[in-house]
């Protein structure tokens, strides 16, 4: 009586089995890749105005707080109102085509609609003011914006990334007077934190209730 499977059928069966397993793995990997927010790490989403931090911060050396006025007092750093942009751009580049949306906003009294680059989940409560006050430099999370022609996300902003710093803040802290500087924290700092930044307790920093409520 003949075998149910010829030798070659047998081979195919085995190959098929292996193939299916392989596809599952591949699928899992690609899925994981796409769990990375609407914009992949590092690429710049389109904006109504191609605003360049590189130009404003890097070249003109405008202080972060000029536009992000709430950063020292509020949870939300603040996005400049149209009129804030107009303080300069009523004089400079008044006819630049790329600034048309800005002028329209000012004239029609309609807000600009920027695309969000740094987005945290709604259940994560982040407060800019306390981080700034405790000496976490802007670049720790936002990267060298002074080198970004278009704003892009440099940090994954996922929970383990937050925790890395909350578990051991030292290397990421600097003199609160220098948080707005774009220079990276010095190696010597990274080794032994910053003496003059006081933290109630580092244990508090990894409580769930510190960010979630």
């Amino acid at each position, binding site marked *: 009586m003949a075998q*149910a*499977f010829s030798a070659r059928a047998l081979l195919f069966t085995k190959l098929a089995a292996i193939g299916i397993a392989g596809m599952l793995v591949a699928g899992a990997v690609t899925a994981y890749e796409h769990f990375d927010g609407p914009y992949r790490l590092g690429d710049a989403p389109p904006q109504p105005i191609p605003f360049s931090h590189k130009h404003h911060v890097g070249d003109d050396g405008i202080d972060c707080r000029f536009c992000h006025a709430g950063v020292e007092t509020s949870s939300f750093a603040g996005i400049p109102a149209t009129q804030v942009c107009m303080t300069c751009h009523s004089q400079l580049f008044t006819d630049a085509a790329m600034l048309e949306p800005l002028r329209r906003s000012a004239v029609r009294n309609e807000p600009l609609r920027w695309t969000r680059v740094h987005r945290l989940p709604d259940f994560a409560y982040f407060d800019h003011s306390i981080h700034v006050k405790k000496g976490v430099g802007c670049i720790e999370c936002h990267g060298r914006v002074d080198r970004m022609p278009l704003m892009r996300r440099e940090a994954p902003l*996922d*929970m*383990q990334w937050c925790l890395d710093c909350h578990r051991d803040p030292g290397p990421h802290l600097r003199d609160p007077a220098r948080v707005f500087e774009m220079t990276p924290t010095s190696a010597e700092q990274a080794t032994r934190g910053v003496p003059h930044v006081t933290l109630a307790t580092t244990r508090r920093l990894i409580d769930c209730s510190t960010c979630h409520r």
Partner: protein
Amino acid sequence: MSSEVLRGRWGYASVTDKIADLVLRRRTHWLWALGFGIAGTLTLVFLGGIVWLFAVGVGIWGVNIPVAWGFAIVNFVWWIGIGHAGTFISAFLLLLRQKWRNSINRFAEAMTLFAAGIAGMWPILHLGRPWFFYWLVPYPDVMNVWPQWRSPLVWDFFAISTYLTVSLLFWYVGLIPDLATLRDRAHGVWRRMIYGFLALGWRGEARHWARFETAYLLLAGLAAPLVISVHSIVSLDFAIGNTPGYHSTIFPPYFVAGALFCGFAMVLVIAIPMRRFLRLEDFITIRHLDNAAKILLATGLLVAYGYGMEVFTAFYSGDEYEIAIALDRMKGFYAPVYWTLICLNVVVPQILWWRRARRSVATLFAVGILVNIGMWLERFMIVESSLAHDFLPSAWRPFIPTGWDWAMLAGSVGLFALFFLAFVRLLPALSIFEMRELVEEEKEGEVA
């Protein structure tokens, strides 16, 4: 003599023919078709329930505060319990060299597999956010968080998944030689292909048999302790809790006994119609039923002892809350449930002291059904009444099941039946090769 485990004069060939033909030759009986139809309908109800549940939330059930655990948990414990008998028969009795098991272990294992599978679904359905059930698994994630290991639910997760895996392997490995037999006897290329694929190229060489025996024995060795461990851990879901009526050290043994009790009842409920419709009276003899009945009686007594002890410890402890819940079960909102389950689980099985009862097929079937119901009620009693009547009187509130609760319970029974009916049609309901061993042994018996 009437106490034999194999009646009539069967040879290797005839046994093989008989069992294999059940799958390969026998035409579909109209009763089977009817049963399959009903089971299928109930399964659809079950699926419908699940869809609605996932769409709107567990609110469709009667669960509330304080009674946050409802039918889902009751059914879970019930089904997982039913599973145990299969493992007990196939693994324990194998290790104990009980040859009478040979003719019943195959379908008992199938029962285990289906029951445990369905049981495994319930905890997931129970969740408020079932799509996150995998958070109970320790895996590296971007949240840097792990399961909370003090929670018995985590232990549960591992207990159940282990149990499912081992049961599946044990059952499948046992099937391999028979699948090969079917492959060889099947007509039609597709059947042969499928059985052939499943037989994993078994050729029945001595080498195969040698390895097979080792593997089978090892798996039996692995499965045996699970009979004890799984339900013990399930019982900890309650025993660990501080709720009066949950918080009791007697639970693990008490639950294991209950599981076997319920499981053997289910074995009877399945075996009796099966031997009747598949004409297996020669293989599943009165002797088998008699043995099962004895185990039923024994475990039943253990369970009764458990009930007694629960009440005793309640009063012996002097803990006002324990006493209150003990009394509430007897006199409170759920008193009818309590007394019914006492009647079904304690009183009814006593009939099995009589040899005539143990050998009356009808009686055994009835007892089997009643005990299954009784054990479901027991789990209901434990889960719901305790929660409905705990520490603060202001929070007391009974649990009242909704239509969905009942529908999904019925649905899960339907799914079980569906699996089982499919099983007897597509796979050898009895283990061919083990029956042949039996024939062999019987022969030796005669020679000696």
